[in-house]
């Protein structure tokens, strides 16, 4: 194998791992709130965008250290998520369609507010750790490693939270059967609110770790939103393991198309989504889907 080919393979692996981790974090959050409260939160990636702008504001305009910016962004955006859930989504939760367009409208509100505050120009944030590693002639930025490790760490923490704590048990049982969970003395409304907080917190965290690697603009939530939904459908709605696997599958598919196909940048979304549809043709409930009984 020549050096060039090795470099290409390495590039694909890095790019796939990074976008896979981002999609995994987003998809797990989206899947969590869908599982517990049956909310299709279109605004999920809009929270990610708000967090990214938060980091930009705190580091570039106020001049604080990026770590503080990350903490501030996660806390603020989580609060924002819980407030918008309380005010806008909770009162109309029985009306599925209304919740849907409420979240779409919420995403539009965030996009417009960010456009007004920061204008629509492309912005960027410097890396948290500068410098890079040379592996086989390919630059691997420390920031990329950091993003990847942080994503894995947070996913491990979330797994521990869901599997090892009482709150996690409550969340999982509410996701399985709302009525029975309620009968067992779990405050369903409270669990839904906490889950919304966790879900939005995850989106904010994703925005925080990924912001140095991307370009900031108010429309940056659209592409991740589509990919996240594809991941969730591919992995199976409500299945966290499915979201995790699906994210890396689509992340690598995207990376392969970008580096190998002509006009790859235009086709990356199309190819990833076609993979999703092919999988659905064979397994309509996704790779690890739990088949939700429709309420009848």
């Amino acid at each position, binding site marked *: 194998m020549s050096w060039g080919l090795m470099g290409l393979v390495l590039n694909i692996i890095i790019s796939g791992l990074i976008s896979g981790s981002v999609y995994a974090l987003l998809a797990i959050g989206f899947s969590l709130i*869908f599982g517990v409260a049956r909310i*299709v939160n*279109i605004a999920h990636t809009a929270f990610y965008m708000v967090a990214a702008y938060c980091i930009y504001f705190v580091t570039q305009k106020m001049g604080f250290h990026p770590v503080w910016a990350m903490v501030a962004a996660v806390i603020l955006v989580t609060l924002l998520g819980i407030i918008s859930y309380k005010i*806008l989504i909770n*009162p*109309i939760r*029985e*009306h599925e*369609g*209304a919740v*849907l*367009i*409420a979240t*779409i*409208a*919420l995403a*539009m*509100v965030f*996009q*417009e*507010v960010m*456009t*007004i505050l920061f204008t629509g120009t492309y912005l960027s944030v410097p890396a948290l750790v500068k410098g890079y590693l040379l592996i086989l002639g390919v630059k691997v930025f420390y920031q990329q490693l950091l993003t990847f490790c942080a994503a894995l760490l947070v996913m491990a923490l979330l797994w521990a939270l869901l599997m090892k704590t009482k709150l996690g048990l409550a969340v999982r049982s509410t996701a399985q059967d709302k009525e029975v969970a309620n009968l067992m003395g779990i405050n369903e409304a409270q669990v839904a609110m906490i889950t919304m907080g966790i879900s939005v917190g995850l989106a904010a965290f994703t925005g925080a770790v990924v912001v140095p690697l991307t370009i900031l603009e108010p429309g940056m939530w*659209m592409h991740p*939103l*589509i990919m996240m*939904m*594809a991941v*969730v*459908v591919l992995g199976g*709605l409500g299945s966290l393991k499915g979201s995790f696997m699906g994210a890396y599958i689509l992340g690598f598919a995207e990376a392969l198309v970008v580096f190998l196909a002509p*006009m790859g940048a*235009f*086709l*990356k*979304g*199309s*190819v990833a*989504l*076609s993979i*999703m*549809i092919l999988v*659905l*043709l064979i397994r*309509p*409930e*996704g790779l690890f889907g739990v088949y*939700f009984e*429709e309420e*009848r």
Partner: protein
Amino acid sequence: MDLILFYLRKLFTVVKNEVLVLPSRVAVILFFLFLLLLPVITEDPYLLRIFTLTSIFAILAASWDLLSGFTGQMNFGHALFFGVGAYGAALLNKYAGIPPWGTIPLGALGAVLAGLIIGIPCLRLRGTYLALTTLAFPIILMGLVFALPDLTGGELGISGIARLAGSRVATYYIAVVLMLGLCTIMWKITDSDTGIIFHAIREDELAVRAAGINTTRYKLLAFCLSGFFAGVSGGLYAHFMRIAGPSTLEVSMSFTVVIWAIFGGIVTIYGPVGAVFVLFPLLELLRLWQELRILMFAVVVLVILLYMPDGLFPWLRDKVEKECPRCKIRNIATRHTCRICTAPLD
């Protein structure tokens, strides 16, 4: 002469006894009259342009309701039909030189084909899966549009297609009459036996299947019908704007359709049409505050939803009309007894 008088008298009776008794019917008649007589009052090009566009989008919103409202097959990728209709009409006009009256139906047939193609994989999915999967199709097509810039013009789209008609007023009448006609047809479809089956599929698909009805065929039919109407609207849009660009396939286009339809109230056909006539001119009005325009639009949608989660028009209708508990005939809210069976209204 007597025959004409007879029909006139009959028309008068129908209007007096069936139309004037219900505010919603009066509103529909006024709506028709307003749209048809608008060019008589004013020929302001800006106003005509807005109402032409509004009519085109009203067809689109109603076609979404026909599919997603009635059969409950949540379609998040309605822009696919719109885009296929627009690109189909534009390509046919540009490369084959077919005039608009030919390209629009052919483009709509293309959209029907698209409905079949996406309908077949989607029939096995339901609920949220379906919604999230349909979102993918316009994006896949958009990738192809960008990847084949020689044919589709890439980011710039296909421009320089023929006008709908020579004058502004004629264009306006084509769009408005088509909108009124197609929406009436859609409303009639939903009122027919097929429409009842669509409605039943949404309520309980298993029960419909148990009644011996091939639900797959009906769902596919819904996809095709909705695709046809949305395709017509796409073709009209392409010929009106004289450009078919990737913006017709954008995710925000699909979302906008969903907003219109749910805002107006689904499973009604008149709801989405009315919603477009409220929201689209509102968006134009908000142009006065250019920067805050989309923000205010979103806030209006959010606030109205908080108070009317079932949509604006069903809410309004429930305010001005009451349903008789005995014979299920609708009455104006000011009445105390039913106009048909004289039963007391609550």
